[in-house]
């Protein structure tokens, strides 16, 4: 972990250039460019709105759906990109010497920049829908835990994918399962009846760090009531552990990257 922070501080020039490179490349030669960062979630929101609200008659405010999809989108982008962070730069890894951790971390940060911009758009949208930013103080914690989680998961995935290409195939399925285990297209209050009867299930549910992180975002942006503090702390704690484990897995495996590629 110390190594990780040292590498990032020492090579911040390179890190920032890689972040800029990743952002540039993502939208290179697409007519709509950055707009795709917004259009992706917007289409998803439209699909879920039609399906859940109109067809299934699921009672859910649009603001919950919008915040859920936009927040989820950041993790989903990291999960999708990170498998290729090392194998997609095989030539660089084999032929040049620099801290390899910058490759996945620059992707996490580039996606974070995209996320910040989409967050701005979301805030503007919320302003038109009865803003309630009473819990805004929770936002920094939500973002920090979110960033830590994305970093840990991305580092572990990109390192493991060098050795087992199965990882990139599993990631898609895993992402889907994670999506529904997380209160993205529903609100945490909807599962409250279940967890009230079985507190253990509630704790299990919040072992998913995204559950607590999303609760923090919604508290910050929608003024939703925060679930029990210990449950949120559990989620944030798991996010921190995932981050540390991801960094450790990466540091352990990186010495063998060039051999495997």
């Amino acid at each position, binding site marked *: 972990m110390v190594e990780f922070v040292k590498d990032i501080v020492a*090579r911040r*020039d*390179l890190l920032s*250039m*890689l972040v800029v*490179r990743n952002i*540039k*490349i993502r939208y*290179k*030669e697409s007519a709509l460019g950055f707009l795709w960062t917004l259009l992706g979630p917007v289409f998803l929101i439209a699909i879920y709105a039609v399906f859940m609200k109109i067809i299934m008659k699921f009672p859910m405010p649009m603001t919950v759906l919008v915040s859920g999809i936009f927040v989820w989108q950041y993790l989903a982008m990291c999960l999708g990109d990170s498998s290729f962070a090392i194998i997609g*730069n095989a*030539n*660089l*890894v*084999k*032929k*040049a*010497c*620099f801290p390899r951790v910058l490759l996945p971390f620059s992707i996490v940060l580039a996606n974070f920049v995209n996320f910040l911009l989409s967050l701005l758009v979301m805030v503007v949208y919320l302003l038109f829908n009865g803003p309630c930013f009473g819990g805004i103080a929770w936002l920094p914690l939500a973002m920090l835990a979110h960033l830590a989680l994305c970093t840990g998961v991305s580092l572990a995935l990109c390192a493991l994918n060098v*050795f*087992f*290409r*199965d990882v990139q195939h599993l990631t898609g399925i895993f992402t889907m399962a994670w999506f529904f285990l997380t209160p993205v297209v529903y609100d945490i209050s909807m599962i409250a009846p279940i967890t009230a009867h079985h507190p253990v299930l509630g704790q299990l549910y919040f072992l998913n760090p995204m559950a607590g992180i999303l609760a923090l975002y919604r508290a910050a942006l929608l003024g939703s009531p925060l679930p029990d503090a210990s449950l949120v702390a559990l989620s944030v704690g798991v996010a921190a552990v995932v981050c540390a484990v991801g960094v450790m897995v990466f540091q352990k495996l990186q*010495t*063998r990257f*060039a*051999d*495997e590629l």
Partner: protein
Amino acid sequence: MSDIAIQVEGVGKRFRLRNAGGRTLKSMVMDWIRTPGGDRDLWALKDVNFTVARGTTLGLIGANGAGKSTLLALLAGTMMPSEGRIMTSGVISSLLELGAGFHPDLTGRENVFLAGAIMGLTREQMNRRFDAILEFADIGRFIDQPVKHYSSGMYVRLGFAVAVEVDPEILLVDEVLAVGDASFQRKCLRRMAEFREQKKTMLIISHDLNTIQSVSDRILFLDHGRVLGEGEPGKVIGQYESFSRSQAGGERRREWGTREVVLSGTEFFDDRGEATTKFAWDQPLNVRIRYDVNTPVGPSTFGFGISDEEGRLVHGSNTEIEKVAIPALSGPGSVVLRIPRLNLARGTYFFSFSVHSADHKVNYHRLDNAFAIGVESEKKFEGICYLPSEWTVG
């Protein structure tokens, strides 16, 4: 600062061999079920020891797969040794591959700054060097075009320019001089000569023995991951040449035919009748080709060919072209081929011999690239063949 730029102690590098498909969960499970065996390991390098004094150039030679590139990768830090220690002092720049890490969608300018950052330079340091890079690469306004639109020449020029303008203390060069056109190669060689004058340390891999002899202070000769020779360039290159001759033939050697007549042996000898496989470029070469006859055949033709190390045919001819009639063959015998003057550049060459029917319909026996000879030459002419030429003034 110590006088030693690079010190390599007992270094070994082991690779795990596995099936072409790469590691999958399935192969992992299979590995786990099978008892682990050392036979799947390959030592690409073993017991490698050497030091490079500051300001000197070490040339690495050896056949493909000898471990040269692995050694440079270990020195560059992209791979870790499996055993032993490597100590380097000074900023290292590696030309393991020109333009490695260039992203096709980014412009030349963006890639130059990115490459600089990868090598550890700050933006200001790169700003100061940018004009020199642009001048050396000589690609003009293309610098602001995505590199995917570059010709391969422009690509390698820009790659080389970045690496050398970074101004490293230690430069690792892997066979990159083989790319680019002649004028670019001259430019690179000039640039490397400047490096030597500036007392930089260099490690160079090249298959071009003439070039490597002229730029190196010392040579390290590797084979199958082991150091077989180290020292003064002329001596080690000679050792390498005779070694590769003794090994040669094996790789490109091919043999086929209907075997009515079989080429049973060859003897190379000089004009004094002494057996040798080493010839001076301007001296005669004799070779006696023995044959056995399994089934008597009619009028036949004996042929030969000489190829260089790259597999290029230098010359080929036969008894028919030279208007020598070979009568029907009914019992063992021999023919002698004499080349009055070789006229070949220094290097290793491979002889092929054949015997076939005079009408070319039946190929009795053919041995391709089966016999290696070494040619030594003091005369420095270009190309692989010497054409006697005369100059007059006025």
